[in-house]
């Protein structure tokens, strides 16, 4: 490939073209040969099904501009003919403190009640005991959920059942 280019007719550029064409031919034949093998041995994918799925998706997106399914979903009548208030009104009895709590506000209540979340003060026996049985290989390769929260917690030395009270361990978990 010289810098001086006198059109396509120089022997050098012709030779370069030949090389390129041969390379191109070779690549095309490679792909053709591989595809021929795949087709003959029955290994090709079912393109019709895949295309059908794609077509249905495209159709769905055209037919339904996405926002409509999200609108007003709280004011509808459900399949059983019922309606519900935005905040669940059922009255539940808290397992921790035995007080009645409105269902829709149960989680924030429980958080304070159990002393969890940002104000974690108590260490429950179950988490302490777990720290002495670290798990082996990760269960999920791609979402390594580490439940071994207690790497920085000392296992409780006393045997199981000494009383219901626990020392307040503050491990700075905010």
């Amino acid at each position: 490939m010289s810098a001086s280019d006198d059109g396509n007719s120089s022997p050098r550029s012709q030779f370069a073209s030949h090389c390129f064409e041969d390379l191109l031919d070779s690549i095309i034949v490679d792909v053709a040969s591989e595809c021929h093998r795949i087709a003959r041995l029955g290994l090709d994918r079912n393109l019709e099904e895949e295309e059908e799925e794609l077509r249905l998706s495209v159709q769905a997106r055209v037919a339904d501009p996405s926002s409509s399914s999200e609108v007003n979903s709280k004011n509808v009548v459900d399949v059983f003919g019922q309606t519900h208030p935005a905040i669940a009104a059922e009255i539940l009895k808290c397992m921790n403190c035995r007080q009645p709590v409105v269902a829709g506000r149960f989680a924030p209540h429980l958080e304070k009640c159990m002393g969890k979340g940002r104000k974690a003060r108590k260490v429950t026996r179950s988490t302490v005991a777990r720290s002495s049985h670290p798990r082996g290989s990760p269960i999920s390769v791609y979402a390594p959920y580490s439940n071994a929260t207690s790497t920085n917690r000392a296992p409780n030395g006393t045997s199981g059942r000494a009383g219901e009270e626990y020392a307040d361990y503050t491990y700075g978990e905010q």
Partner: protein
Amino acid sequence: MSSFSAPSAGGRRNLYVPQPCPHLADYRSNAHGLAKPFRSLQPCLRVRPLGRPEIRRDPHEIPRCGPCSAADGGGGGMGPRLYACLACAAVCCPAHAPAHAEECRPGHEIAVDVDRAELFCCACGDQVYDREFDKAVVLAQIAAAAANASASCSLPESLRKRRRVDYRPWTPDPREWATMRRESSPLLLLDASDPFSTGAANTSTSSPPPSPGLRGLNNLGNTCFMNSVLQALLHTPPLRNYFLSDRHNRFECQQKGRRKKDGSGDSTGGHRWNPSGGSPVCLACDLDAIYSAVFSGDRTPYSPAKFLYRWWQYASKLASYEQQDAHEFFISMLDGIHENVEQDQHKPQSQGNGDCCIAHRVFSGVLRSDVTCTICGFTSTTYDPCLDISLDLDSNQNYMNVPTTKSHACNGANDFILSSQICGVSTLMGCLERFTRPERLDSDQKFFCQHCKVRQESLKQMSIRKLPLVTCFHIKRFAHSSIKKMSRKVDRYLQFPFSLDMAPYLSSSVLRSRFGNRIFAFDGDDSDAAIELASEFELFAVITHSGTIEAGHYVTYLRLSSQWYKCDDAWITHVSENIVRDSQAYMLFYVQKTLYYKASEDVSAS
């Protein structure tokens, strides 16, 4: 061209060996099979690491056509294809090959493409295939790749094949019938007097009445992450069947737990001891309670308060009143079920074969990871169990962003898939293809090659060794940056099929493709047929997320008896397929279409 970039093969069916053409058949019978000529061919099979096998008498030979001296890649003529006659080793280009066959017939019709190690029938003018020839090529490839090294780790014990058995339907004996009649009550299935049976809701004309087990879940305060996952799990067929068949009876389990606690002060029961002094903690029991409630026939929304309480006791790190990640909750829950059940058996079970607990039996698959040295071809293989498959959404820059309506225009038969890429639509299959594509590792991640004894650049390729009964795909829409200490959400639409064939992503397909799709049974995969038949899946649940990371909402779409429902906390409504297809998928649940039964190793194991 490297064999790593072979066009993707599906492997849907068993590899099919086509009938030989008459010339090949003749050749085989006259030469008593092709073993003899192949033996003389074998030393000429040259394989470069990661390369294609070639036929060269001498490593530096440049083959030329006898009649016209055309060579590969040079001097005109018909280009670089050269064929070596199997009978006499005469080399011809495509122009002269038929003449050679004609002149020297019979017996000189079959030749081999020297650059691709493919058989060619000069009389038929077509590429032909033979099992023995392919086997010779593959063995040469394997020998070249492994060299002296003791190649990959052998298949772990847990994956060894178990005998497949026929399904034996179960019918209750008279005593069991009596028990059932005595101890159970029928689900309140819909009858004429039931006001709900008319499907009084907002739907199109004749929608079937809602199945039992469909029940809203109250939001307890930012708990839609939990509700959405629960809805998907409640209707995961194998899981649902397990709990509805009373395989984990919460009353018995609690009794057993109490006896353990009272009986021995040892630590085996310690995990499950409830710090508040109540019954032992077992997430499977709590899930069992939800199944009972949801399938009771009561249609008023259920509040999974006890479950939340138990789960917070189990996963204290995630216990706080703020929106959690549904996927994290999903893994945590399966984890919890696994731990509680595992203690019962007093021994750790390999997770790969799913015998340890119902969570793994349903969701656990095995991923295979191959890392190949680009210099010598040595491959190191590892297997890891997984509960789900997390996929990256492709970034925008790979595709031209053309509005999707244009895809109607580019509509040729085989163009469609390509056109979806050009038109900028991400697809689940595209993500899976990327997941199983060989990836060149960065030069700063050089892998220590046991053969070369130095760090070398390498290729990594993932594939699915064993498919779970239910495959959960997690689409990574939340991009966390630990540097910037912030997260952002990727809202890009992802197309997903309702029916999915996972065969192209299986280790058997990927491995076969890596060796050029030759007719050969690769390591340990002797009953490929079995694995590949079980590769068809269908969608039954979609968890979507709308909004931002800080203020978002999870909703589950469920398919029950061919009808799709939207489960938005307490609100269950009918929706059309289109709405589901159009939704922004975050987690996708696919169940195997056909179930196969294996002989149980342990009679008492469920």
